[in-house]
């Protein structure tokens, strides 16, 4: 059902929702950019429409809202475990289609990989309602269309801002809240239909490509910083940490924190064994996870990567993820096997 608002009527909706929901959206935080006197666009809590950053892509995805960077799994005292309490409030996330699709990829890992469901993820995840923001234009590194992640069919609301007017397509669960302040209109969501960047993803990737020289340059270029993983809406890896409290070493907690397959130590085992020591191999591993392994594993019709372009946006070494996909595609397509190392 479509509704139209002006800024203040829309803010009325937000105000009412905030009684039951914590509301997140891309926001611009003054002077919190990495570089001095620059701003950071990232997900943060909002109160009003004006708090939402509509023009810029957020640096991080929204995943940290329901997959916290550091998450306590349980506390322990000498003899007992106790679970952390979570806020009874539900969650609304204003996000673009790529991030909305990214959440489904995470669902696949946390809820459907293996027989056991990740209850910590599930508990937060089931609170999340998505208000999808319409993309008016695609940013220069976006390739969501190539990844089939430009569209979302399930959302609680779809939001278009046009100047001082806000148009929403609302699902039944939110109908009362929206109808109270809005006027009924016809509204059809519009999605980006093409990006400047298009990639062709090879359907079949032969194992021989593992030994292709195309990865070599990344051993020289990549500094294994892991930025590409932490900004990715679909990277789900984590590491366990047990910590004891300094004032009482018998009490502590077990936590998980995000992990990155690009950073040293990801595969380290006791006794000094580790895998993918050079960065070219890590690049291959990450890239193939995003555009091959996931789809292969789950037999789904989409890849893990949603084409948000963030990994290219943040790489300090200017490594373009899409350029690497193209190189891979060329290598796979070409019958010329000279690139293969023996």
């Amino acid at each position, binding site marked *: 059902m479509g509704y139209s608002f002006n800024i203040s009527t829309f803010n009325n909706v937000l105000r009412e929702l905030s009684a039951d929901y914590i509301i997140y959206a891309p926001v611009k935080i003054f002077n919190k950019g990495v570089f001095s006197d620059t701003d950071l666009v990232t997900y943060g809590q909002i109160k009003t429409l004006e708090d939402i950053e509509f023009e810029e892509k957020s640096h991080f995805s929204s995943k940290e809202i329901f997959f916290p960077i550091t998450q306590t*799994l*349980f506390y*322990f005292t000498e003899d007992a*475990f106790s*679970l952390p309490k979570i806020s009874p409030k539900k969650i609304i996330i204003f996000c673009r289609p790529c991030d909305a699709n990214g959440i489904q990829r995470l669902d696949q*890992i*946390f809820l459907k*990989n*293996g027989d*056991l*469901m*990740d*209850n*910590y*993820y*599930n*508990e937060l995840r089931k609170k999340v309602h998505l208000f999808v923001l319409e993309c008016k234009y695609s940013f220069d590194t976006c390739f969501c269309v190539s990844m089939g992640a430009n569209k979302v069919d399930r959302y609680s609301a779809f939001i278009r801002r046009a100047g001082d007017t806000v148009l929403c397509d609302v699902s039944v669960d939110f109908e009362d809240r929206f109808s109270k302040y809005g006027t009924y209109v016809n509204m059809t969501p519009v999605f980006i239909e093409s990006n400047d960047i298009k990639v062709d993803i090879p359907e079949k990737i032969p*194992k021989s490509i*593992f030994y292709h020289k195309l990865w070599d340059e990344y051993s020289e270029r990549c500094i294994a910083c892991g930025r590409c993983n932490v900004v990715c809406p679909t990277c*789900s*890896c*984590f*590491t*366990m940490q*047990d*910590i*004891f409290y300094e004032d009482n*070493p*018998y*009490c*502590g907690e*077990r936590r*998980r924190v995000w*992990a990155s*397959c690009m950073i040293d130590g*990801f*595969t*380290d*085992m*006791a*006794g000094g*064994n580790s*895998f*993918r020591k050079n960065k070219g*191999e890590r690049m291959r*591993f990450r890239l*193939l*996870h995003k555009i*091959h*392994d*996931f789809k*292969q*594993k789950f037999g789904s019709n989409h890849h893990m990567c949603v084409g948000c372009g963030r990994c290219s946006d943040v790489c300090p070494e200017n490594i373009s993820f899409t350029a690497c996909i193209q190189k891979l595609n060329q290598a796979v397509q070409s019958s010329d096997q000279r690139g293969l190392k023996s």
Partner: protein
Amino acid sequence: MNNPYLPVKAKIINVKPQTEIDYTFRLETAIKVASGQFFEVSIPNVGEAPISVSDFGDDWIEMTIRNVGKLTNVIHKLKPGSHLFIRGPYGNGFPIQQMSDKDLIIAVGGTGLAPVKSILSQYCKKTIHLKSLTLLTGFKSPADILFREEIEEWRKEFCVELTVDKDDTKNWTGNIGLITGLISKVSISDITNTQVITVGPPIMMKFSVIEFLNRKIAKENIWVSFERKMCCGIGKCGHCKIDNTYICLDGPVFNYYVAQNLID
């Protein structure tokens, strides 16, 4: 809701040093396991690690743990009566039930003996059936030999060949040399009906498999057990992933036909 990360407390009922750095811990628990599966074992405050089940009975499991780091250090200080925290079992074990009419050759290096030990003891207890069983086992030196007493028992029931890489003690009378030497000599009577299990350090497994392939054992008849970093054991943390395979879910035991394509 079910919380797969919450471990349960398990009482240590026996601790048996095997070598200076490998101790076997017997835990009281009724959890049912299969040979080749593993648990996530932890001491809250210290850490958690995947550890294979080395043996099990109706109300106990045994784990043979090498002291190599933060957690295993602390575990080694534990005495009977104290507790470990475990969750599991995880992973797929060895398909022993399907081997009842086969000749099974097990080739293991070092601590690789632990995950297969339960097969050997069950065979002795006749709770599993095989046409024949041969154990080829290699250790770094005589001091590193695990399950000495058990090995003597096993010798009575099936063929056991043991070798050490080197001996500084000068009073070692057994085989000296790499396990691949044993593999090249082991008698294989019915090649199509022979199954092989090999477990050990990556290098040892690699060369053992090559040797078995030389002996014309088909890839489909070779089983290996992988060790990778694991933080969850349940397909979430991503550390154990190789291509589209999660070692914790799809392994740690793999048929070599599959394993040959697992490239880190």
